[in-house]
């Protein structure tokens, strides 16, 4: 059966934006999951602020449209409140690698059972074209007309170092590959992140650049349990940018490690007895 995830929001992405294939891949991927063992009512999405975040309005799903960079803590709160929910976050490179970078690192460290898509267009787009944490050195944006003075951050290296338990990269030009990777990320119990290489036609059009360089990792040529190898493969090379699952491991999730009463539990509250103890 097909699932209608349309809303009546007007789509305001630029024609040719890499976000369209994210939206379509998510819809198709969720459709597949709903046909199997996931229910629409149990999905909760969150988004930061930026072009990526407009996806929130285009998906008829439960969610909390949060603040710039704050997707991970919002999802953490949702997950603590009700661990049965499946949480998916949408973030931008400027959003979660600048403003919210501490939250990303800590969510990975905790192994929060969440899936985060980092829409990495390597530029600040909705604020009309400044360099972002992933822009190449020398990037000529409106705030750096002579070129950005900084080396870019590799988000996947950051995530490997932060102990994320599922680390992948996809590309807007490879929608089916994204859909399949997204489903695996959602099914992964733990912190799963997909860096989505996503061209911005207005401020940093990288379609041709990626089309010439993106290669798919296959299971025969990459062992996703090997961290050293994951680090090596996740490096952007001049002539080869691999996409696929670089690393995954199974370990207990954040909410599984919590020891207190779950908010959804029936509660025994024994204030009187405690006050006796305090007398």
């Amino acid at each position, binding site marked *: 059966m097909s699932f209608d995830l349309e*809303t*009546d*929001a007007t789509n305001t992405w630029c024609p040719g934006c890499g976000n369209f294939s994210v939206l379509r891949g998510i819809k198709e991927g969720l459709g597949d999951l709903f046909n199997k063992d996931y229910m629409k*009512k*149990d*999905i*909760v999405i*969150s988004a930061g*602020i930026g072009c990526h975040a*407009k996806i*929130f*309005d285009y998906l*008829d*799903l*439960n*969610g*909390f*449209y*949060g*603040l710039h960079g*704050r997707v*991970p*803590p*919002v*999802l*953490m*709160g*949702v*997950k*603590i*409140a*009700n661990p*049965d*929910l499946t949480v998916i976050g949408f973030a931008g490179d400027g959003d979660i690698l600048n403003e919210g970078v*501490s*939250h990303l*690192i*800590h969510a990975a460290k905790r192994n929060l059972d969440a899936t985060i898509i980092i829409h990495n267009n390597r530029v600040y787009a909705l604020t009309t074209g400044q360099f972002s944490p992933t822009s190449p050195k020398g990037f000529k944006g409106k705030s750096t007309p002579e070129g950005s003075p900084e080396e870019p951050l590799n988000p996947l290296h950051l995530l490997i170092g932060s102990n994320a338990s599922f680390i992948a990269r996809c590309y807007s030009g490879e929608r089916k590959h994204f859909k399949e990777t997204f489903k695996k990320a959602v099914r992964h119990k733990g912190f799963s992140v997909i860096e989505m290489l996503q061209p911005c036609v207005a401020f940093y059009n990288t379609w041709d650049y990626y089309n010439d360089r993106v290669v798919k990792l296959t299971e025969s040529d990459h062992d996703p349990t090997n961290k050293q190898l994951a680090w090596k493969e996740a490096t952007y090379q001049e002539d080869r940018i691999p996409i696929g699952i670089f690393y995954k491991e199974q370990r207990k999730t954040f909410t599984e490690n*919590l020891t*207190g*009463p*779950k*908010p959804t*539990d029936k*509660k*025994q*509250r*024994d*204030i*009187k*007895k*405690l*006050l*006796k*103890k*305090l*007398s």
Partner: protein
Amino acid sequence: MVDLSVVLGGKAGQGVMAAAGIYGRLAGRSGYDVFIRNDYPSLIRGGHNFCEIRISSDVVYSSYGDVDILVCLDENTYDEHVDAVGDGVVVVDGDFGLEGLEVPVSSWVEELDAPDIVLNTGFVGVLAYLTGFGFDGLVGVLRDVYGDRAEVNVEIADKAFSYCRDNFEKFVDFRDVGGARPFLSGNEAVSLGAVSAGLDLYIGYPMTPTTSILHFLGEHKDRLGVEVVQPENEIGVINAALGASYAGARSMAATSGGGFDLMHEGISLAGISETPVLVVEGQRAGPGTGVPTYSSQADLLSVVNAAHGEFPRIVLAPGDLKECFYLAGVGLNLAWRHQTPVTLLMDSLLCESKATCELPLESIEEEPAVLSETDNGYSRYRDTESGVSPLRFPGEEDVVVKNSSYEHDISGITTEEIDMVSLMQDKRLRKYKGIREDLSGELAVNVYGDSDIGILTWGSTKGSVLEARRILDEEITVVQPLVMKPFPKKELNKICSSFSCIGSVEANSTGQLATLFTDKTDNEIDEKFLKYDMRPFRPNQLASEIEERCLD
């Protein structure tokens, strides 16, 4: 009537506060009113910590600066406080070579081959004897507090008792008069109030003076039915609290001024997304990092105006333990009733002082959220007369629940439409009508007395003012607003219109309550009594200043 002031001091790491706590519980169990103020610098070992302990057969509102009994766990305590001891006694260790009741506590610690820390229990034994409490009572408290580790403490207390019996007269005779009462801090009272109103999740980042909420709920989470989580920073705290509330868990966070500054964006988010949350702000001496372990009331104007944009907010300011419990419960319920952020404004003195108190347990119960009855066509932000839209939660059948930080339409989809933006802003601000109704009358302002001299005060400072009121020969009326936002103009105009003189007493350097009061009501403040040396107003001194400036 018996009324006693004790100062017990030593180095950080000697268990000064633990000792005062044991003694306070003993006095509370024996049926007396107890108030303890902790005074400690921001360090872990060394320095000078002391506790002001006041015990009375009457009601106690605060501590005094004078000392009847000084207990010195180190020599420095003697130097710091001996001048404040009038006709009282000084208890010192036999090794110090100082004048006073010399007790060889440190040699007993050696003799018993006990850990150094039990020195503090030895001194509690001395103090308990000198003030007439029974040995068995003390042993009971030691066993309850130390459990498996009680034995060595009991041994040293026993030595102290026998030694004092053989060598000293009692200083005062507090006998056990029965009627044990709980002995707790403001932070603990707040925690229990929130739990009574259905708290599911406490989420906090450590910051003095609210850290002990994190400790207390962490220790008792199973008994109280609360999950406790410590995230990476205060921005993580507030956003996680909102995520949890959105998904149906009642959440609370606590911090101090600096952490609350970081939370502003989240408070604003709670406002526009109409997400319930209760935040405790325990004020300490600022600005910046300020003086971390000392009290102040200088965040009032910042907190009532916190965060950008215009949205309904509630700020409640308790002044004693009962109010801490009650307003925390009311605050959590109101956050959910009106789906908006509520701040409980406290201060170090209120957060961390301990006192005996019967909490009004029956006054707070969890109020169920307003839930939507329609199963089809649920709209998260449906326009209603009260401004409050019925709630549903993710995971429930047949609904899509979208909260948003952007201005949104009734379904939670982003909007920039002129009419919709106005409609939503009006809808949210309309909640103030219900909020004002809920926070009117006696709940909004406490009044003590009936005279034409009004003294306005708030928060922990109320304790000193009520003590000063006792001392004064002439009657004054103490007026304490409990609600700072929306400010109770109507009530205060009614109460204050007949005063011939209005003074305000607060622990800051600019008179922030006075500013709010002058700004919002039709009255002026005649005399400001301000103190910003981080120590509480001393009742005697305050009384004479009020007399001089308001009563001639």
